């Protein structure tokens, strides 16, 4: 970690008592049934993932806490958290986890569940729109720069319609369609 913990207040080990009646005991199974959830239960809360995370200092819920929250069934809190969207997908936590929990991949699974419930940051919805309308995130605008480098002005082989058709029929279509 590169900067001191910026948060004021009590140390992160002090947590509020958990109201058992609000827990969704199926959440862990939901994640476990997803592509990267196999090792979820192996987490022994060592917080190595948090130590490896370059941005955990600005997170309210740290990576190890999010994993714990998934196991406990705090579905709503996890899926509504900003943290899952701030995750850099840098895989440093996952690389270091001694229990082989696929921490980063599990956060990807969480984002998909959140997306299914339309809990997506506006800017990401914007990217989804770009992908669906243009079939790519970046379009060549400065084709003279390409010509300067003796490249074809347009990208050879590029064809975006098939891409657009595919994601129109999957969740992206719903996300973008639901916006209009």
């Amino acid at each position, binding site marked *: 970690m590169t900067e001191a913990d910026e948060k004021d207040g009590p140390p992160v080990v002090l947590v509020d008592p958990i109201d058992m009646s609000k827990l969704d005991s199926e959440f862990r199974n939901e994640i476990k049934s997803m*592509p990267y959830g196999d090792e979820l239960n192996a987490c022994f809360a060592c917080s190595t993932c948090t130590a490896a995370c*370059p941005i955990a200092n600005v997170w309210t819920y740290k990576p190890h806490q999010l994993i714990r929250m998934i196991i406990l069934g705090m579905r709503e809190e996890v899926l509504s958290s900003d943290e899952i969207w701030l*995750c850099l997908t840098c895989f440093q936590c996952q690389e270091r986890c001694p229990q082989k929990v696929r921490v980063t991949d599990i956060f990807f699974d969480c984002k*998909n569940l959140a997306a299914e419930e339309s809990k997506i940051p506006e*800017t990401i919805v914007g990217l989804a729109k770009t992908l669906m309308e243009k079939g790519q995130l970046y379009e060549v605008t400065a084709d003279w720069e390409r010509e300067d480098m003796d*490249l074809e002005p347009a990208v050879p082989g590029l064809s975006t319609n098939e*891409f657009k058709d595919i*994601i129109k029929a999957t*969740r992206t279509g719903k996300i973008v369609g639901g916006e209009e």
Partner: protein
Amino acid sequence: MPSYNLYMGCSVPANYPNYEAAMLKVAKELGMELEYMEGVACCGSPNLRAIDFMGWLTVNARTIAIAEKNGHDIVTPCNGCFASLKDVYHHLKHDDAHKKQVNAVLKKEGLEFKGISKPRHFVEALYSDIGIEEIQKKITKPLDGVGIAIHYGCHVLRPKDVTEFSPEIYQELVKVTGATVIDYPLWKQCCGATVLPVNEELAIRLARDKLKSMTEAGAVFATVACPACGNQLDLQQLGLKESYGEEYNLPVLLYPQILGLAMGMDEDDVGLSMNRVPAGSIIEHLTE
């Protein structure tokens, strides 16, 4: 002569024609046959994986399936495209249910994902298939030992069981040009590109930390092999004066630019003037 399906993705062609051209030129010199793939588009980026896993699987499986028509591996100059393609390749090789589901969609186009054509990063193909020894033979203007910090990029290094990439690959490729590889504390850390759409300030902090760590360790240049990492480390430097009151003046070169220069190409061949932080000073480090 090894042949490859060249998958460009959308960022390199739009933002880094110098990277694209330098890659094509060094590949040609070294006898790698790169052929632009027909009928492909974007990989969707980690953003698509986050919101639409099945869509992400399908578009990338489609790209791989197109490559499988000629059976050659895929190479790409972008870490993000590499990560998407390789992750999907890995996943579909291990998940029959998803493979069937994806293939049911691809069938409409007469395509099928089989898992024959492997997605690879350009630098890895250069290292594994051409090899340091052959590259060495082409070096006519070696660098004078100048210190270069490598930013590998998260998505080639991790998760290792998926990417099968090791840092030594990139280190050896830099060393063969005559440069010295600078070891710096934050070598594994993210450039911040992924978080740019949701929190720009945080993304800038990450880029700045990285640059600080590199320069403090004595790097004179940095190198990347990814357009998104390039953006973060090169372009973002221009704004750091305002946000942090700091100036790094650390030129960031795409790897094929360095290799091309060491192989005797001139600065226009590798598009040096397109780098945001002026990188022309690398010329002074070339020896005859």
